[in-house]
């Protein structure tokens, strides 16, 4: 069983600004649960003008009480309240010539319990013209947009010009629970025995039935996704708005403030807001 969510949206900002905001989206006031972000790999291909980036995010998360009830605490490694930290691996490719950015984020831990793959594709809307012309226009368009960010070192007043350009976003989230599957397969392969001989490990799974447990977990994941997606969008919009108002300087200043708030306001945030639910 797999659950799938998808949506389409249009940002009222030009494509280059949106790609920059993607890299600068954490921290923002809607994602105070994202504690750290590191770039672990980056590759620029001068031939294709494509940039590939791999980043690692650490998020504070709260396991839904429904999941806590379903799974034994010993398996989860979380505190009694369900507080835990989790790593998210994000990969992105930006093609500035063709005007698209393809991104994918996935959880690194508990992928057996629930694997969550989030994909976002950003596109510069293409006019209805032949391909050859399109390529040329893409280049010319990038050149024409020189002024969109006037960045002369941090401290300069870089701004996004309101050119009326938009960016299309296609988002999807795929949720897949494999709980019970690996154990069954591995046991059968290694020992040539059926799962029946391992009642101590399979007991709680069997009592539920593997498939209904998987479906329940995917359903819980989906309701989280539905709650967190608007926050992810709002977070991007805050960053884009800061960029429009005061350029990169404003974005970086906003990030600094958000980071400070996260550091000192661990408890205040917990009481005041509930953004623990991812993105």
């Amino acid at each position, binding site marked *: 069983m797999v659950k799938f969510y998808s949506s389409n949206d249009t940002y009222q900002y030009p494509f280059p600004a949106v790609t920059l905001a993607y890299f600068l989206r954490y921290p923002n006031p809607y994602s105070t649960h994202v504690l750290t972000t590191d*770039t672990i790999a980056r590759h620029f291909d001068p031939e294709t*003008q494509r940039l590939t980036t791999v980043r690692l995010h650490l998020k504070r998360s709260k396991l839904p009480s429904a999941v806590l009830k379903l799974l034994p605490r010993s398996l989860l490694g979380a505190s009694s309240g369900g507080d835990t930290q989790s790593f998210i691996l994000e990969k992105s490719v*930006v093609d500035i010539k063709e005007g698209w950015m393809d991104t994918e984020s996935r959880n690194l831990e508990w992928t057996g319990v629930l694997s969550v793959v989030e994909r976002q594709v950003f596109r510069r809307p293409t006019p209805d013209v032949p391909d050859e012309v399109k390529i040329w226009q893409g280049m010319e368009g*990038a*050149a024409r947009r020189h002024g969109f960010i006037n960045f002369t070192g941090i401290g300069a007043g870089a701004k996004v010009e309101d050119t009326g350009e938009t960016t299309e976003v296609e988002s999807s989230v795929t949720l897949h629970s494999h709980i019970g599957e690996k154990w069954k397969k591995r046991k059968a392969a290694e020992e040539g025995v059926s799962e029946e001989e391992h009642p101590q490990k399979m007991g709680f799974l069997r009592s539920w039935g593997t498939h209904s447990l998987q479906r329940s977990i995917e359903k819980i994941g989906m309701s989280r996704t539905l709650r967190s997606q608007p926050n992810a969008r709002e977070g991007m919009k805050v960053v884009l708005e800061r960029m429009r108002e005061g350029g990169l300087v404003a974005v970086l200043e906003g990030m600094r403030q958000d980071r400070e708030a996260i550091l000192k306001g661990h408890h205040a945030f917990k009481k005041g807001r509930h953004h623990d639910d991812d993105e």
Partner: protein
Amino acid sequence: MSASLAPECNEVKERYDSCFLKWYSEKFLRGTARSDECDPLFKQYEQCLSKALKAKGIDNMLKEAREDNRENDAEHMRPKR
């Protein structure tokens, strides 16, 4: 700037991130980039970070995940038109 997983790498990360943002907005987005000019700073940052990842025992998990994903990436990282 966002914080690093390893506080001891924050300084070198900040230097790299600043370099990257400048290169990205001034060159890459304009289609005039010829090479990744911030690579030397990235190498320093990477050196610091990889030590921390190893110490925290995250390096293996990361390696496995990236190997698992490699095959998916080839077909996936190109939007269908």
